[in-house]
């Protein structure tokens, strides 16, 4: 018994295992794209910084751009920022709705801005928190627009019959006139919520003169009142200030609180008007279409100008994938329903629906701006609160005379890059998935093919030789030109030569007998001729001996070719339905006559046993088995003939008591020219043909024959198993 452990890892498994190293490829691809993204990110950083630098360069050494009008280099809280308004504002709509877009720029004035004036000389305020307002100043089409959201707990209007304009709640507008250094004062003190009817007043609020160029409306709100007004730009000099005067007691009508945008109502202390600078506008607008948000901040971090919005500032403009009719809809389905959900387990999908929390402020802050305002260009990445969007922010200082006068801030979101990366990864994954599927399937199939071919070759090889070592089948030579085909061909070649050799050996006796027959005939016919002529007694003795020898030689020759002749006959024989019971019974009766000294025991099933065969050959087989048994039987020991059906087979056993089979012989006793007879038994010529013939006949009947030592006593049993007749 050959104990080789079967290797559980077949060729197929090995190939599939090796092909699993292909999984490294998507990982490499992923790494490559991540690297690429990093590279692109740096590129984007440089571009953004470059944009900032270009803008800053364009604005360098032009302090007048920042200073136009009365932009003073230092920020002062009394300065009024005039924001450009791009749509007409309605003054008579009774609401601030049309200001909506600009309300973010409104400035609070309250506790810090209480002002002591001639009208409230003793204390700046009567009651803490009773008055505050929000102000916003814009410019549209040559006019200055402003609104005031005043919070006042008690509105006191000017009485109908009063001449004075300063003994009620009123708005005072102080401005430096265009032509001179004098400060003009205008008062808006309505009788009730109404269209404005402003007066130009003197220093002590005397001689009110109607000023019709200023128009607007006053209306009440839940917690106070709102004022909207319009002043033509040509009225204005460089400085302007607003003050709300509040009267709380309608009886005394004394001014209790004043909140103003300025600290003192003289020409120097009024706030500057910070007008938008068209020059900067033009310069920045020229760079505006580069997919970024550009902001100019002044030294105070206050945003002077914004171009573009951060949501659409994707930096990298990625055309979204074309998903038109050309794309297979099944593929689309797979892509969207199966692949993408898997991919986006690891990838983050950026959304353009984000809010820059810092953007709403009028002022901008951040490390980059701080750094730029200190004179060093700086870029930074900022992740927004949602975590899915990153912003790239670059700031570059604007210099004038070696001093920083402001900074250019260029922002981009990283969504474009992220989208680009995701698309690249999707394509990469799809391609690799497809390729790996193909490669793996291909490998699997080719490995299966190879292993199945090898297995089939092995099976064929195992079938070539039967249990008794005889060549039974051949190998069909494969026609494929590879190594396995080569192996198959060489196997086939070997088997063919082996078959030839075996058949040469098997036919040896037959051919030998045929070849010997002619010389034997020569000798015999010569002897017979001699016998006819020789008459003397002495010679007759020798002749007789010679003829005896020739006779034995003849028997040998006949025996030698018997098996071959039988094989030839079996090839043309037709089987029929026969009753084995009758055949065996008849035969055993015959043996009793033929071997009168031998006792035969018959253990036989009653009733017919039908098999498909040729009765003469069955009888011939029995003859051989019995002859063999008789020859090896000890004297006075019975020979048992057993015949019973076992399921769909019939088992015939012939047992004798006698010497056991030599252990090494086994089933080889059924081979031609094999004899286990001891030398002293060789009175008759024996060629070991008998059992070989028995096997030929058994196999002709589709059965098997076996010889084994008896278990109950010393002796040998030969068993023949033949299938029963069936239809």
């Amino acid at each position, binding site marked *: 018994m050959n104990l080789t452990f079967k290797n559980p890892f077949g060729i197929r498994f090995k190939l599939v295992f090796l092909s699993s190293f292909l999984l490294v490829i998507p990982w490499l691809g992923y790494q490559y794209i991540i690297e690429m993204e990093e590279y692109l990110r740096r590129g984007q950083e440089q571009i953004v910084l470059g944009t900032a630098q270009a803008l800053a360069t364009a604005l360098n050494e032009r302090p007048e751009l920042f200073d136009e009008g009365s932009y003073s280099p230092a920020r002062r809280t009394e300065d009024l920022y005039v924001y450009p308004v791009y749509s007409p504002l309605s003054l008579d709509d009774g609401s601030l709705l049309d200001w909506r877009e600009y309300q973010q720029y409104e400035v609070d004035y309250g506790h810090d801005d209480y002002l002591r004036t001639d009208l409230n000389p003793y204390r700046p305020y009567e009651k803490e928190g009773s008055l505050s307002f929000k102000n916003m100043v814009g410019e549209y089409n040559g006019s200055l627009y402003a609104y005031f959201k005043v919070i006042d707990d008690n509105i006191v209007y000017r009485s109908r019959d009063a001449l004075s304009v300063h003994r009620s709640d009123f708005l005072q507008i102080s401005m430096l006139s265009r032509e001179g250094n004098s400060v003009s004062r205008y008062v808006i003190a309505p009788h009730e919520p109404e269209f404005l009817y402003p007066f130009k007043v003197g220093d002590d609020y005397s001689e009110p003169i109607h000023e019709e160029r200023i128009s607007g409306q006053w209306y009440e709100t839940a917690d106070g009142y709102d004022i909207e007004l319009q002043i033509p730009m040509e009225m204005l000099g460089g400085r302007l200030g607003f003050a709300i005067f509040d009267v709380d007691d309608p009886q005394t009508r004394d001014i209790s609180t004043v909140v103003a945008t300025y600290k003192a109502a003289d020409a120097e202390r009024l706030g500057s008007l910070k007008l938008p600078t068209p020059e900067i506008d033009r310069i920045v607008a020229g760079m505006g279409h580069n997919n970024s948000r550009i902001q100019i901040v002044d030294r105070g971090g206050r945003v002077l100008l914004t171009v573009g919005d951060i949501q659409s500032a994707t930096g990298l403009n990625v055309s979204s994938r074309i998903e038109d009719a050309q794309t297979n809809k099944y593929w689309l389905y797979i892509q969207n329903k199966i692949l993408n959900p898997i991919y986006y387990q690891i990838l983050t999908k950026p959304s353009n629906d984000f809010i820059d929390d810092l953007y709403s402020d009028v002022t901008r802050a951040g490390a980059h701006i701080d750094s730029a305002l200190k004179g060093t260009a700086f870029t930074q990445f900022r992740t927004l609160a949602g975590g899915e969007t990153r912003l790239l922010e670059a700031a570059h200082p604007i210099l004038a005379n070696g001093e920083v006068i402001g900074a250019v801030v260029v922002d981009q979101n990283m969504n474009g890059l992220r989208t680009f990366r995701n698309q690249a990864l999707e394509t990469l994954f799809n391609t690799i998935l497809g390729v790996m599927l193909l490669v793996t399937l291909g490998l699997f199939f080719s490995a299966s093919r190879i292993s199945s071919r090898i297995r089939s070759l092995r099976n064929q090889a195992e079938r070539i030789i039967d249990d008794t070592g005889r060549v039974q089948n051949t190998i069909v030579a494969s026609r494929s030109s590879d190594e396995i085909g080569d192996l198959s061909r060489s196997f086939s070649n070997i088997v063919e030569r082996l078959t030839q050799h075996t058949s040469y050996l098997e036919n040896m006796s037959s051919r030998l007998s045929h070849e010997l027959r002619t010389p034997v*005939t020569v000798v015999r016919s010569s002897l017979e001729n001699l016998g*006819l002529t020789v008459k003397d007694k002495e010679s007759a003795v020798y002749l007789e001996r010679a003829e005896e020898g020739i006779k034995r030689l003849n028997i040998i020759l006949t025996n030698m070719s018997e098996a071959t*002749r039988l094989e030839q006959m079996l090839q043309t024989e037709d089987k029929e339905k026969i009753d084995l019971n009758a055949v065996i019974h008849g*035969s055993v009766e015959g*043996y009793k006559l*033929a071997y009168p000294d031998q006792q035969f025991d018959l253990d036989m099933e009653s009733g017919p046993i039908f098999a498909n065969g040729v009765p003469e050959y069955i*009888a011939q087989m029995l003859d051989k088995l019995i002859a063999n048994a008789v020859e090896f039987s000890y004297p006075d020991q019975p020979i048992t003939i057993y015949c019973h059906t076992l399921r769909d087979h019939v088992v015939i056993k012939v047992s004798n008591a006698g010497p056991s089979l030599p252990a090494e012989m086994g089933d080889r006793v059924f081979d031609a020219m094999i004899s286990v007879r001891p030398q002293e038994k060789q009175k008759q010529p024996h060629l070991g043909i008998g059992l070989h013939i028995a096997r030929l006949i058994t196999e002709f009947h589709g059965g098997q024959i076996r010889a084994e030592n008896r278990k109950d006593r010393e002796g040998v049993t030969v068993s023949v198993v033949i299938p029963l007749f069936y239809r």
Partner: protein
Amino acid sequence: MSRRIAIVEDEAAIRENYADVLRKQGYEVQTYANRKDAMSAFDLRLPNLAIIDIGLENEIDGGFTLCQALRSLSDTLPIIFLTARDNDFDTVSGLRMGADDYLTKDISLPHLTARIAALFRRLDVIDQPPSPESLLQRDQLVLDVGRLTVQWDGHPIPLTVTEFWMVHALVKYPGHVKSRQVLMQESKIFVDGSTITSHIKRIRKKFTHVDEAFDCIETVYGMGYRWNIVPASSH
């Protein structure tokens, strides 16, 4: 006038031995070593009997060709194959070519001469009316021992000399089992058991060719064969 026997045999020693024996028997014997010589001689004059080997010099089936040629020249000329080839296939082929007997070279010379004598005897009596004493009748079977012919139910059965002698041995004592050994002796051949089996099979086939219901030759397993008497109904 003595009978002329032609021996066609490529082995000189065998040829001459046979020729010597037959000459001693009083036959006129011509010997040929190959088919060409034999044919040219036969074209001139036919022998009374031909003994032919199958393998002739370089023609492995030369004997068969010669037999066919001879049979086309004469329907009645007795032809005997005497060959070393003992397989069934050659036997059947030889007999189909029209040979009167197919013998292997194991046959002893006396057996051979007995056969030749029988064949000549058959030639002699063929023109004479059948003599009743040479007839053997068993039910439908009529054996003419002189002519070596068999009739079943009035139909002639073409048996070879060997087959005739086997049938004769069985029929002589109907119901008696004749072992293969006995049949061998009776038919003056020396072969093994399986050859007897195939002889019997051929005989049965020849009978059933005439009468489908023929089953008079019964196999007694382990012992031999016997001729069964048909139940007396036909009488």
